[in-house]
C-alpha cells in the first residue's frame, strides 16, 4: 500500500516510519542502561522534578542524554558522508574510510597518545584534555586536503586519482599507526583500542560541545549538494552541461566529509560500517535520488547507531561491548539479507 508503482516506498509514509523509529529508539536509549531507574523517576527527572533516587538526574541528564545525542549525530554524519562519497565516486564501496579521512584522524590521535610524553609534550600542554579530539579533527581535515591536492594537480580533479590517493594515504597512515603501536608502551597500547574499536562510553556534554557544531554543519550543508550529485550519477561531463561546476561540487563534498568525519572520529573513535551500509539501505528502499538519500541517511544512520549503542551497553551489563562490534553484528546480517533479496543488476 505504501509502495509506489516502481516497488519503492512513498516518501511521506517512510518519513513517518523513520521518525517514529528514531523516537522509539531515543526513548529506549535514554530509559535503558546498566543502572536501574524506575519509570516514575525517569518521568520526574524529565519533568524537571526531584527523583527518589538522588543519582537519577545525573545518570539521565549528564550521561544518557549526551550519549544519545552524540551517538545520533555520529551515526548521522557518518551515513551522510558515506552517501556523499558514494555519489561523488559513483562507487558503492566508497565510505569515509576510503579517502583516508578516518585513518588520518585516528593516526593523529594515536600519535598524541604515544608521543605525548616526549615529542608532542607541547601539544598536550597547549590543549590539555582536548589534545586528542583536536588532533583527530586536524588529522582528518589534513588528510582530506592532502588527497584533494594530489588529485587536483592537473588543474582538474580526477575522481579515480582521488580514490587511488585515498588508498595510498590509508596504507601510509596504517603503517605509521603500526610503527607508533610498536613504540607504544603496554599502557598506551590499551588506550589505543578506543581509537580502533570506537566507543561512546565517555560521551558527555563536553564532547558534544566540541563535536556537535561541525557534525550539525556537515549534515545541514549536505542536502545542498543533492542535485549536483544526482547529475554526477549521469556522468561527470553531464554535471557541467546542467550548469554546475564539477570541481566546486567535489571540493564542497570533500570538505563536508572531512569536517564531519574528523569531528566524529575525534569524539567517538573509529566506528566503521554505518557509513557504508546506511546509504545502501536507503537507496534500496527509497531510490537513488540524493535529495532523498542524504536526509534519510542522516535519520536512519543516527537511529541505527543509537540502537546498536543501547544494545551494546545492556547485553553484557555491568560491562559494555565496543560499539563497532555491535554495529557489525546487527548491520552485517541485515545488509547481507538485503543483498540477497536484490535482483541481479
Amino acid at each position, binding site marked *: 500500500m505504501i509502495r509506489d508503482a516502481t516497488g519503492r516506498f512513498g516518501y511521506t509514509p517512510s518519513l513517518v516510519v523513520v521518525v517514529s523509529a528514531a523516537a522509539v529508539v531515543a526513548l529506549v536509549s535514554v530509559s535503558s*542502561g*546498566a*543502572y*536501574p531507574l524506575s519509570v516514575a523517576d525517569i518521568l520526574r527527572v524529565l519533568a524537571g522534578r526531584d527523583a527518589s533516587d*538522588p*543519582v537519577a538526574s*545525573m*545518570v539521565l541528564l*549528564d*550521561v544518557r542524554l549526551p550519549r544519545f545525542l552524540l551517538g545520533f549525530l555520529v551515526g548521522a554524519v557518518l551515513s551522510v558522508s558515506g552517501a556523499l562519497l558514494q555519489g561523488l565516486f559513483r562507487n558503492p564501496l566508497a565510505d569515509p574510510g576510503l579517502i583516508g579521512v578516518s585513518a588520518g584522524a585516528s593516526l593523529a590521535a594515536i600519535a598524541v597518545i604515544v608521543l605525548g610524553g616526549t615529542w608532542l609534550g607541547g601539544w598536550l600542554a597547549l590543549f590539555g584534555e582536548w589534545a586528542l579530539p583536536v588532533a583527530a579533527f586536524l588529522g582528518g581535515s589534513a588528510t582530506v586536503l592532502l588527497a584533494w591536492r594530489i588529485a587536483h594537480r592537473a588543474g582538474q580533479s580526477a575522481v579515480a586519482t582521488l580514490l587511488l590517493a585515498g588508498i595510498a594515504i590509508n596504507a601510509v597512515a596504517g603503517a605509521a599507526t603500526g610503527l607508533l603501536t*610498536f613504540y*607504544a*608502551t*603496554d*599502557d598506551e597500547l*590499551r*588506550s589505543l*583500542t*578506543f581509537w580502533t574499536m570506537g*566507543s561512546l*562510553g*565517555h560521551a*558527555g556534554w563536553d564532547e558534544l560541545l566540541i563535536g556537535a557544531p561541525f557534525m550539525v554543519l556537515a549534515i545541514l550543508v549536505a542536502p545542498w549538494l543533492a542535485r549536483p550529485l544526482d547529475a554526477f550519477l549521469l556522468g561527470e561531463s553531464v554535471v557541467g552541461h546542467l550548469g554546475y561546476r564539477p570541481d566546486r561540487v567535489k571540493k564542497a563534498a570533500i570538505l563536508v566529509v572531512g569536517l564531519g568525519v574528523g569531528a566524529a572520529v575525534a569524539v567517538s573513535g573509529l566506528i566503521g560500517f554505518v557509513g557504508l551500509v546506511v546509504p545502501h539501505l536507503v537507496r534500496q528502499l527509497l531510490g537513488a535520488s540524493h535529495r532523498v538519500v542524504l536526509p534519510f541517511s542522516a535519520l536512519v544512520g543516527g537511529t541505527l547507531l543509537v540502537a546498536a549503542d543501547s544494545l551494546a*551497553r545492556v547485553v*553484557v*551489563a*555491568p*560491562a*559494555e561491548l565496543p560499539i563497532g562490534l555491535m554495529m557489525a553484528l546487527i548491520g552485517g546480517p541485515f545488509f547481507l539479507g538485503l543483498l540477497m533479496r536484490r535482483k541481479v543488476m
Partner: protein
Amino acid sequence: MMFRLGPFVLAVLLPALVQADPLRVITADGAITEIVYQLGMEARLVAVDTTSGYPPATQSLPKIGYLRALPFEGVLAMKPDLLITSEQAAPKKNLDRLTRAGVMVETLPSAWSPEAALARIRSVGDLLGEPGRAALLVTALETEIRRVQRSASARERRPKVLFMLAAGDHSVMLAGEGTAASALLEAVNADNAVSGVMGYKPANREAILASQPDAIVIAESTPGQFDIDSWPELARLQAWQAGHRLVADSMLLLGFGPRLPQAMAAVNRVMPSDARVADHDS
C-alpha cells in the same frame, strides 16, 4: 528471644555504622583484588574487573569490564561505596562521574618494587578500615621477601635473565626495560638480558640466541600456553638445557600483589649458582 538478641546485634553493628566502613566494594585491578582476598575481606566485594582472575573464587563475582574501559553505569549499578583501582584505570571521565555520583573512587599507584607492593597492601587495608589485618599481612610478606633477598644478594654476580611474555598462540614478547618484568628481576638482584629496549617487544629469534642469558623466565597469560617445541632457539640456550628456566602464570609473576614473595622465590630458585656463573664467564 528477639528482645535478648536486640542489644547484642546493635552492639555488633554500631561500631561498623559509626566508622562507616565501605561495605560494598569493587576492585578493578588483579593485584588489588588479590590483596582484598588475602586480607579476608572478600565478602565485601560486589564486583571485580576482567583482570581479576585470582583467586579462582573471583569467577563467581560480576565483571564490570576491563579496567582501562570502565563503564560508568555498569559500576554504579552495583551500588558500590568504594571503587579501588590502579592508575591505569580509564576513562578518567567515568571515574570523575562516579565520584560525583557519591562513589568513593581510590586510584592507587602501580607497585613495581617490594616496598611499593607492601605500601599498596597497607593502603587497601586503610581503605577497608582494616589497617590491623594489613599490618599482619605486610609483616608476614616482608619476612618472606627478606629471606629471598638475602639469598639473592649472596650471589657474587648479578645474573642476566631473559624474560619473555607468552600472550597468544604464536606471540611471544621480550620484556625490555621499564616493565614489571624488569622490576621483578631487580627485586631478586638480577639484570634484564634485554637492554636498550623499552616495554614489551615481539621476540626476535636471533636476538634470543644472541642474548646468552644465565636464566630464562617465561610468563604465560593462560597455563600451558607456552610450547617450547615452537621455540627451538630457546631450547638451544645453555641456560634452558641446564634447567635455569621458569614458566609461570603472568599474574603471579607480574602482579606485584600478595603473591610477590612467591614470585620472587620462584625466579630466584632458577638462577644459576655462583660456580655456574663463573663457568659461563670463562
